[in-house]
């Protein structure tokens, strides 16, 4: 789990070009300045690529925070 969190954190850092970003299960879009609806698309695509999986449309619109994203990754990610 810790390893998945690290990989996810690196994806966040790349997408938002900010090495100081630290994420937790409670992180939401409100916590990261550039995380708007457009960057969300990039973030999702980058996460999917990193973990070799796809989110369903329902999941993409339903995720409330990083914790929920993490749950889906742990279930289906590689």
């Amino acid at each position, binding site marked *: 789990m810790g390893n998945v969190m690290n990989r996810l954190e690196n994806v966040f850092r790349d997408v938002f070009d900010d090495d100081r970003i630290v994420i937790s299960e409670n992180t939401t879009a409100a916590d990261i300045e550039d995380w708007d609806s457009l960057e969300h*698309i990039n973030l999702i695509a980058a996460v999917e690529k990193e973990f070799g999986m796809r989110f369903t449309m329902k999941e993409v619109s339903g995720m409330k925070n990083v914790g929920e994203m993490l749950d889906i990754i742990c279930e289906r990610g590689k």
Partner: protein
Amino acid sequence: MKELTYPFDSSELMKNKKKLRRLLLNDGRTRFKKKIAFLCGSTADDIIKMTEIFLLDMGIECEFYKSEYNKFWEDGVFDNPHLNKFAPDIILIHTTNRNIRSYVFDMTVDCKQAEDMLSEEYRRFETLWESLREKYNCPIIQNNFDMPLYRVLGNRDIWDHHGFGNFITKLNMRFYEYASSHESFYINDINYISAQYGLEKWADPSYWYMYKYALSPECIPELSLNIANIIKSIFGRNKKVLMTDLDNTLWGGVVGDDGVEGIETGQETAAGECFSEFQEYIRQHKQIGIVLGVNSKNDHENALAGLESPDVAVKPDDFAVIKANWEPKSINLEEAAGELNLLPESFVFLDDNPAEREIVTAQTGASAPCLDNIHEYIRTVDRNGYFEVTALSHDDLERNDMYMADKQRRETSKRFDSYEDYLESLEMRAVIHGFEPADIPRVTQLTNKSNQFNLTTRRYTQGEIEAASADENCITLCGRLEDKFGSYGIVSVMIGRVDGDAMDIELWLMSCRVLRRGMEYAMMDRLLEQASVRGVKEVKGHYYKTPKNSMVKELYRDMVFEKVLEEPNGDSHWRLCLQGRQKLKYFIDIKES
């Protein structure tokens, strides 16, 4: 930037967009600035960001305008103060088959009605283009359409007039007819890009339903590179030279070791066929005005023997420059650039050896795509779009003949005692006159690609050049030069703006191919002559310093102007009083037309 050279990792590029942009903007390069308007039929923010990155890498820094989501038509056709104020240098319309409105799937429609649907759709776009043309007078880039994701009629969909595939194919053909009969209108061929990427991967429906992305993020870099290539080509930033290594690049094996009989080329083996096709691909570039060169570690005789082999499709005479020796390839490339009067960065260097590519790119700034497997050579070079053809001037078609004539001139110049004797022996003739309609594409091209002999480095669109030629207050001049070895076509351009009894030289450039031939004196002489006729008493000239134009820093001094002011940034301002002017000296016979 290596990451941005095809084949690239699309997902990595998309993920790292912010970082790439930051790195490029901070790399210290001087770029020229342009304004591009995107009129979009779907969410295009990432397409714009990615296009920006590719353009930065190509030396162009752009500011962007983006239409409201799916308001590409309304934004273009109706009065639009924002777009007016933005004053675009290029307008790009980004649509996909999702934006086609008039087509309906209806099996009761007859041929005539299908034709009417098609015309209605076509006219919607034509109205948009005409409106943009009239209001903004700048180049327009319009995509054709990608093929549909499903086919209710199956294979019948493509030929039956009820099919969407059939509709799209016909609509695309209408677009091409418009493109072939209108200047400054360019097709962004997404039909090809989507096909080569794979339609299913290109248009992932989930991205459309969730975000109104007509194509999936992974394809965006492919599309953006394609767009950036068209834009850079319009602004004259294409590569100009294709310089190739020989052993294991142009043919298989090492000619010095294996002998001409031993090299792999021709129809005998699979690899041989690959090399032959690659040679043919390289040779085809000659026809679009790309200069060919050889850069090989070989004895000169061995290199020539290889090229003369009947199984090799490119011959020594196809190459304007052949560097086959044991010097470092970076030095060879720089020497070749000097001989051709072109910048090393306008070269594409082909070599199978990664170490050679590395040193050549690092030392000279030339581009060197990664060539690993012979069967991928063509695709790799082709997809990078180094030579994207937007305008094809008469000069482009004859460029190689000009460089071959240059080769002969260099030989000749060795036989004269004085340079003046040499100049006289060339029997040079020039035709210098105002811009005529046929000159406009070439003149525009020159204003965008001349860097070294360019006093003000002002870049012009075709519309601006047309406007200058029609402006009563402008004296426009373009000069063609020829000598006993051949013609150079249009090599120099001037624009002088007359205001009362003063004239300001807004633009003065010359192709470096004709340096040290006296053409600059002939041009200035003609300009001053015409200025005098118009009653001009004082002429002002400016030198605006760029990293590339130091060769003309003191040019006005040679033309007997006096320096009025030198600014701390290196710019200088000059003036000349026309009273009692003396004719300048040169060895060129001037004709009116």
